[in-house]
């Protein structure tokens, strides 16, 4: 059980939570967060090393209960688990949508200043996560909002296409809504640029045994959540199907 050190509202429905403890994780790796008496769920690590931290969107009972926790309250953490992003190339494009910015933010932090172009997308300007953090890390930030309240009006994937039409990147990174990821994977493969993308599925064990997060024979908790190009290209269900909590295939 770890004591909550900081708990901050980043957007109207995304909060960050930091702890005194040190946790070394690769960008993209996740921890299982236990809110005693309520639920346990996976959350990506957004601050690694000392005073590590998570960022989460309030979407269900578990995250709602987490959001009510005060400084000094304790929650359970196990991990880190899974594969992370690997920093590669001199000129990188990061495409992040909504809370999908959380796992790529530490990647941008660790990249050389000026080597990253970030397409940061959200529905409205208030929901843009870690824009300042990315700018401070030296990334060139390109904003896309669905309603056009800031930056490009449209999807992050559309803005990413414009950038990829104009410039040549060594590596593309994507995290966000699955339809966005599927589009960016297609784009990267069309432009023949290697891509790494972080995917999400319902997770129960977090350690690669229960099959709840199965995706075309892979397991998001262990083989992912970050998948490489070779794997992504062979995922029939990417952008199409996922398992519900009973293991039935349903549309994404």
């Amino acid at each position, binding site marked *: *059980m770890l004591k909550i050190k900081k708990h901050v509202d980043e957007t109207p429905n995304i909060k960050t939570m930091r702890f005194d403890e040190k946790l070394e994780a690769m960008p993209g790796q996740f921890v*299982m967060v*236990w809110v*005693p*008496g309520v*639920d*346990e*769920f996976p959350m990506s690590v957004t601050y690694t090393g000392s005073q590590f931290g998570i960022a989460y969107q309030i979407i269900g009972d578990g995250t709602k209960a987490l959001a009510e926790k005060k400084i000094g309250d*304790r929650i*359970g953490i*196990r991990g880190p688990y899974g594969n992370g992003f690997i920093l590669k190339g001199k000129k990188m494009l990061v495409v992040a949508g909504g809370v999908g910015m959380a796992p790529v933010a530490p990647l941008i932090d660790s990249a050389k200043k000026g080597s990253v172009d970030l397409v940061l997308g959200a529905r409205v300007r208030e929901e843009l996560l870690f824009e300042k953090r990315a700018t401070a890390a030296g990334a060139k930030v390109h904003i896309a909002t669905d309603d056009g309240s800031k930056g490009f009006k449209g999807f992050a994937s559309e803005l990413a296409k414009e950038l990829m039409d104009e410039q040549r990147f060594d590596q593309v990174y994507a995290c966000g809504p699955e339809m966005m990821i599927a589009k960016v994977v297609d784009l990267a493969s069309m432009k023949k640029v290697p891509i790494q993308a972080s995917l999400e599925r319902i997770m*129960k*064990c*977090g*350690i*690669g*045994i*229960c*099959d*709840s997060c*199965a995706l*075309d*024979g892979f*397991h998001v908790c262990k083989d992912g959540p970050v998948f490489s190009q070779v794997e992504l290209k062979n995922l029939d269900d990417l952008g199409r199907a996922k*398992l*519900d*909590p*009973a*293991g*039935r295939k349903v549309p994404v």
Partner: protein
Amino acid sequence: MTDLSVEVCGLRLKNPTMLASGVLDETGKSMLAVAKAGAGAIVTKSIGREPRIGHPNPSVVELEDGLLNAMGLPNPGIGLFAKEINEAKRGGVPIIGSVFAGTEEEIAELAGMMAQAGADAVELNLSCPHAKGYGAELGSSPERVERSCWLAKQACNVPVLAKLTPNTSYVTELAKAAERGGADAVVAINTLKGMAINPEAGLPVLGNKFGGLSGPAIKPVGIRCVYEIYDAVQIPVIGVGGVTTGRDAVEYMMAGASAIQIGTAVWLRGADVFSLVCKEMTEFMKVNGFSSVRQLLGVAHSGRH
């Protein structure tokens, strides 16, 4: 030449390792991946009549010497499972369909449906310790075990395996009941019922409060059960509980297991555990003068001659 092949109640296995029920076996493609990784057979997730989401998280607790789990029998329901079995069968190894239910009649009906869905054999889950009304609640009484096996045998024309609970003081009575009911083999053991409490939270960790302990911690219990059952019945015993290395598999076979199942060790060693265990068994056999894995069967009952 070291021969790892075995035949258990008509199922021909290229090696004696099977994937245990509950691990990487809810989807066809995952089972296929495990078959490709070297498992001699695959036992599916336990499947019931209706889709079921299982227990709330946390559903797994990692311990030093094993795992405590309370998944709560999540499954998509038998109606959707034929597709998964067909996919898994592309792996070229026998697929054993595990089924659970609340009554003898229903588990038999599910056994029939599982055979219809394409399973090469059926494993009756008479032993899950953490799902109210199912598993061990059906499988703790010899009468109900016997009747479940008998009805399941009537309902399908494939081998019926009875997976037994160790949470009893008379596991041999359960095994004898399965044999009387006509089961083709018994599988021993399922997990040991247990609980973990987080002292800071002052609460049980598992969403279901109690669960089943698996992994190296329970191996001596499994070995003892298999040893006792081997003496008590004529039908084959399949050993499961903490098999992690080739030596563990040898121990189980010497106790009387015709084949073994591996679950938690997938967490410890990945899906490669099947080929690793086979390699380690082969090495042991070479060093110790066994040419066929079948020669290991029950050795511990008489000592090596």
